[in-house]
């Protein structure tokens, strides 16, 4: 599953850096109204410019993901002097970290000089929890109209991502002996990180008893295995490494980014036909290898991992696919305290993640990776020099980003 065609001398390793990050406040689902989603995006970008010591006049590229937004209206609103690069990674949340790779690609190829990656989300009208629900009774509008491929899934009652990832989690438990206690450790450790931050929507600790008392949503996943449903926006500005040195913040270099995946991972949870070899995985094995090769590092070199955590078992599977532990050992690895901040061997989601800080489709992970490398994170990993951020598990592309000081 890992093609060996090397990119040779053509690499974007260390040629760009993240110069600024910014966000709006994070809101519970719908509470950002009456602001418009793209208004949130603009506020996040202005905050990122401020952070970088740049202005809108400097921005000349937009690298988006998960369907993006109307770049023409956005540029018109903000009077961006000249857009030279606009692009959208295909797929959904899998593109989060990869959108910064897209920005870096634009810069390294000389198409643009200062590229913003932005996610804005407002879940007032539609909820991701029913992303794959077909149109139901007349008048009811859901998220995924019936399709020839969906016809083979929807009649089973699978219509939300959590239900679908539950199927992967169940298989992981069967194959490797993973336990609900292991999922709980992901939820509890992430919550412990979140409650130390004033940006977090979840402000109380989570106990094992509370976890097991919570209602079951889709077995084996209970309420606390699911991430939050939120509104908000996060923006990240990427420039050339040379330019970053002259800006306000300490440069955070882009060592590598990869997006994609194996073709037969494909639509993943919305087809369920992935090969047995990696059915119970995060779909990240190819992009993990690609990014490590580009950066010239291994898992042992990563100081902090910001792993896309829409559902707790998918953190465990990413720990395996990124080589922090052997395949199948992820459950026991987290149970041993390895992902705890500050004591674990690889602190994970020090910002509180999608599970407990806010779900902005993975861009909070990139923001935290930047703050960790700058040394300004609230839950700072001491001496952090290399940070990994991921987007997805999802249908392909899934993606990642390796940053360093």
């Amino acid at each position: 599953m890992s093609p060996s065609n090397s990119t040779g001398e053509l690499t974007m390793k260390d040629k760009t850096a993240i110069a600024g990050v910014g966000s709006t406040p994070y809101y519970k689902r719908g509470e950002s109204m009456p602001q418009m989603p793209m208004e949130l995006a603009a506020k996040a970008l202005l905050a990122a410019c401020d952070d970088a010591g740049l202005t809108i006049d400097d921005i000349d590229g937009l690298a988006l993901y998960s369907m993006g937004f109307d770049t023409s209206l956005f540029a018109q609103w903000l009077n961006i002097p000249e857009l030279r690069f606009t692009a959208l990674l295909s797929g959904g949340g899998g593109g989060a970290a990869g959108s910064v790779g897209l920005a870096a690609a634009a810069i390294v190829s000389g198409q643009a000089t200062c590229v913003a990656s932005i996610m804005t989300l407002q879940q007032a009208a539609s909820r991701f929890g029913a992303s794959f629900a077909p149109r139901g009774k007349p008048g009811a509008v859901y998220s995924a109209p019936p399709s020839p491929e969906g016809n083979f899934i929807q009649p089973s009652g699978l219509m939300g991502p959590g239900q679908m990832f539950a199927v992967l989690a169940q298989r992981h438990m069967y194959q490797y002996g993973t336990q609900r206690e292991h999922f709980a450790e992901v939820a509890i450790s992430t919550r412990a990180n979140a409650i130390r931050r004033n940006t977090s929507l979840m402000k109380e600790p989570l106990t094992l008893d509370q976890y097991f008392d919570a209602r079951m949503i889709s077995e084996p996943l209970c309420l606390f295995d699911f991430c939050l449903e939120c509104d908000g926006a996060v923006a990240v500005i990427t420039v050339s490494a040379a330019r970053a040195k002259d800006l306000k913040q300490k440069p955070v270099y882009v060592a590598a980014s990869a997006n994609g995946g194996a073709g037969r991972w494909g639509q993943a949870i919305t087809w369920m036909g992935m090969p047995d070899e990696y059915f119970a995985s995060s779909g990240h094995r190819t992009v993990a290898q690609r990014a490590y090769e580009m950066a010239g590092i291994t898992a042992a070199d990563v100081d902090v991992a910001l792993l896309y955590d829409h559902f707790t078992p998918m953190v465990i599977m990413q720990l395996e696919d990124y080589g922090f532990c052997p395949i199948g050992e992820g459950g026991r690895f987290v149970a041993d305290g390895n992902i705890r901040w500050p004591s674990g061997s690889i602190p994970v989601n020090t910002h509180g993640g999608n599970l407990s800080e806010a779900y902005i489709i993975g861009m909070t992970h990139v923001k935290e990776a930047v703050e960790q490398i700058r040394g300004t994170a609230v839950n700072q990993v001491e001496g952090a020099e290399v940070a990994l951020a991921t987007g997805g598990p999802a249908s392909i592309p899934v993606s990642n980003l390796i940053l360093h000081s």
Partner: protein
Amino acid sequence: MKGLTPESVINLTPNVWTEPFWAAAAEHRLVVPRCTSCGTHRMPPTPFCWRCRHQDVEWEEHDGRGTLYSFTVVRHAVIPDVRDALPLIAGIVELPNTEGCRLVGNIVDCEPEAVRIGLGVTTDWYDVREGETVPVFRLA
């Protein structure tokens, strides 16, 4: 049958590649497309053989006996239509001798506690409405 997804959220929209599957389903027959060039089965039916990229298929009858590959018990309604139908068991069933082809459907007439990965299942048919039938599964 107990444990069926409500008909209001099932709406079959076949294309030229999937239509023969649903036509056979309406007759309570399970058929799986098989590449006429390399013999590889593929599900759902798609325009290309994933192994050799050939297009033509023959439709092979299958007895519908399979193995439960994974499942989830849906306990929470993400849309109102399914509220009264819970719990629903969504099963992923692997069909032997098909290079790992899987079907996804309700596991019917059984208690959630009885469901285990690896159990044998048989295929049955849920007539949703005239001309629209989908596969469901029973523990063997």
